[in-house]
């Protein structure tokens, strides 16, 4: 007699027609655990696997590598740059930091580049760059659901902030190239934030207080690179431990720039390509027409009092103040150990009493909060430390600033006495 099996589908077991035993039931939970485990292993292992295996490249001397960098003429490239900075600036509650305050101050709802530069000072950002010869460049900061782009195309410089739908327009000085001053083309621009520019700046500062060596090879953005290690000589007081530049073995383009503090730990500045392509950027990359309804700010002409929105006027006033302050600027020491000495007029920073409502008293109260009091032959003062730059504000209004350790600052202050 045929068995009576009410509404049962014969199946391969996967479709679970037989009620599974207790053990089988428990075994099923192995599936999600296994999936999670495999995922965790993949997440853990893949970066480790990817980072192994530094490329084998023919040996090269530091001198050869530097000249290779100098000879590099990659005119066309595009890619993504990741920039991570950790200056050790005290952060404020809410995840902000002093650098953010600066950015907010300069914000003013305009798409002017200065405020965006301030944002790069802290945290981690992704930039996308594209270059096609000296006349066409593009840098954009990838933001959350928004982007800030600077586009240089011939005589035009545009900045577009999609977050506020506003644009900033300036004309590049025509004679800038004749002067051979590349950086003037995009004044106050963001290009300084790419590994190339940083490498250029550092190499131009190399002198006899510096050790330059080729320290192995690495892989950056899928390309083989030599690591150029630049270090201050042993007896230096600098807070900078080393600068490491990864140079593309093929065409000499710096791909990664890392500035590490002597105190160890995370790099202070870490800029590197995560993706790079030395082909011609897509047509249209450097075209920009301000979208309908976007607010366009023209660059204020230097020296014009009628510049819009207090921009120029405020700047020039600031500039005069700064000039007044800078009149007392002297640099002592050389190379990595340079200390800038700044004599503030009238000993404005003298009162260290906290609680002043505003003005210098309040400012130095704030300083006292961040800094540490030190004493020396020069008298007493406050040292404000970040991971890169230390500053000593003495009671009689002198300021010593440098990328050197605290003792070197005190030494400089004593010497100045």
């Amino acid at each position, binding site marked *: 007699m045929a068995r009576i099996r009410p*509404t049962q589908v*014969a199946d391969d077991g996967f479709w679970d027609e037989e009620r599974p035993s207790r053990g089988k039931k428990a075994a099923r939970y192995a599936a999600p655990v296994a*999936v999670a485990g495999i995922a965790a292993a993949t997440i853990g292992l893949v970066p480790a696997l990817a980072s192994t295996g530094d490329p084998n490249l023919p040996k090269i001397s530091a001198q050869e590598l530097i000249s290779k960098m100098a000879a590099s003429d990659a005119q066309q490239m595009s890619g993504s740059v990741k920039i991570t900075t950790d200056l050790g600036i005290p952060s404020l509650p809410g*995840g902000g930091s002093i650098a953010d305050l600066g950015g907010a101050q300069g914000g003013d*709802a305009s798409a002017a580049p200065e405020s965006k530069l301030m944002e790069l000072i802290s945290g981690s950002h992704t930039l996308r760059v594209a270059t096609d010869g000296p006349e066409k460049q593009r840098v954009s900061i990838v933001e959350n659901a928004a982007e800030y782009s600077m586009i240089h195309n011939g005589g035009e410089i545009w900045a*577009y902030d999609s977050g506020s739908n506003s644009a900033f327009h300036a004309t590049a000085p025509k004679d800038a190239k004749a002067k051979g001053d590349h950086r003037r083309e995009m004044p106050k621009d963001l290009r300084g934030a790419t590994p190339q520019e940083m490498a250029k700046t550092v190499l131009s500062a190399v002198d006899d207080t510096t050790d330059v060596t080729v320290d192995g090879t690495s892989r950056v953005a899928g390309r083989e690179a030599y690591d150029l290690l630049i270090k201050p000589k042993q007896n230096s007081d600098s807070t900078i431990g080393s600068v490491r530049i990864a140079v593309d073995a093929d065409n000499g383009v710096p791909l990664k720039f890392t500035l590490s503090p002597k105190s160890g730990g995370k790099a202070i500045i870490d800029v590197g390509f995560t993706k790079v392509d030395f082909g011609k950027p897509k047509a249209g990359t450097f075209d920009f027409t301000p979208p309908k309804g976007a607010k366009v700010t023209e660059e204020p002409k230097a020296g014009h009092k009628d510049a819009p929105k207090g921009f120029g006027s405020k700047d020039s006033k600031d500039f005069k103040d700064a000039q007044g302050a800078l009149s007392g600027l002297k640099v002592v020491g050389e190379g990595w150990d340079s200390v800038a000495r700044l004599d503030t007029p009238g000993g404005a920073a003298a009162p260290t009493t906290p609680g002043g409502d505003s003005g210098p008293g309040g400012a130095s109260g704030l300083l006292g909060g961040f800094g540490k009091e030190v004493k020396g032959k020069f008298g007493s003062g406050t040292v404000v430390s970040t991971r890169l730059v230390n500053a000593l504000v003495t009671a009689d209004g002198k300021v010593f600033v440098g990328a050197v350790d605290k003792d070197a600052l005190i030494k400089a202050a004593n010497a100045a006495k």
Partner: protein
Amino acid sequence: MSRAEERRVADTGVPRTAHTGAPAGRAANPSRPNPLWALALFRSELAITLRRWRTLALLGVLALIPILIGIAVKIETSDGGGFGGGRGGAGEGPAFFPQITNNGIFLVFASLAATLPVFLPMVVGVIAGDAIAGEAGSGTLRYLLVAPAGRTRLLLAKFTTTMAFCLIATLVVALTSLVTGALLFPLGDVTLISGITVSFEEALLRALGVAALVALSLVGIATVGLFISTLTNSGIAAMATTVGLVITAQILDTIPQLHAIHPYLFPHYWLSFADLLREPVYWDELVKNLGLQGLYVAVFGSAAWARFTAKDITA
């Protein structure tokens, strides 16, 4: 049509002839339901879900949001000034709002950005949380299991329905905002957030891609909701837990001290859909988002399977 009747409709697709006296052996499988029948189960599930007043009300609310945003922006800018012109700190507003007045298609992106953090996951959480637990709560689950579908197939049908609902909910938001945007604001060439201008057709394509990405961003929480739904017999409890998880995960995502776990929270890359509006498209986070959602689907989908196939159905 009552719920029980609908269930009967669902069952009419069953090839009943297949079961008469077939041996339980595994060699020949004459009685294996054909794939089309599995589709029928999914179709009936989807129809039942979409015909519920609760679902319709939720979709109605979703459709209302773009209209409200559109009208609000229209009123705000009707005096001729740009959006946020009166305020100092433009750019601090929600994503894509300043562009809406100049191009209606940005209403699609703005609405999706506005609904993705709360409304969409909430609606999906309600549907997903109700999927199994709701049936158990109303006592229909055991009747559903009497049908020769098997628990895995039923779960798959529920899962597919929930996924389809993610897409439907997203499309409701996208289409209403597109229509509202077209009615209230001008359309035309679109300046992408990288400052590059593309034709309206390409922008429409990208908008479609954005909608697809938003729908895919929701599959993670939908699967989690389905898993929670297999844990309890109370539909309300499952919905509340799912929606609560959405909120908790987003709060955790804003705490900087927990940055180590942020990349593994399902809402972390939600707003990455905006990367489709860059030129060239910035794929990194899009890929991460899809990978993360896939991971959630794999882990919680298999957990839901393990739980549901091993569960004692008491209600």
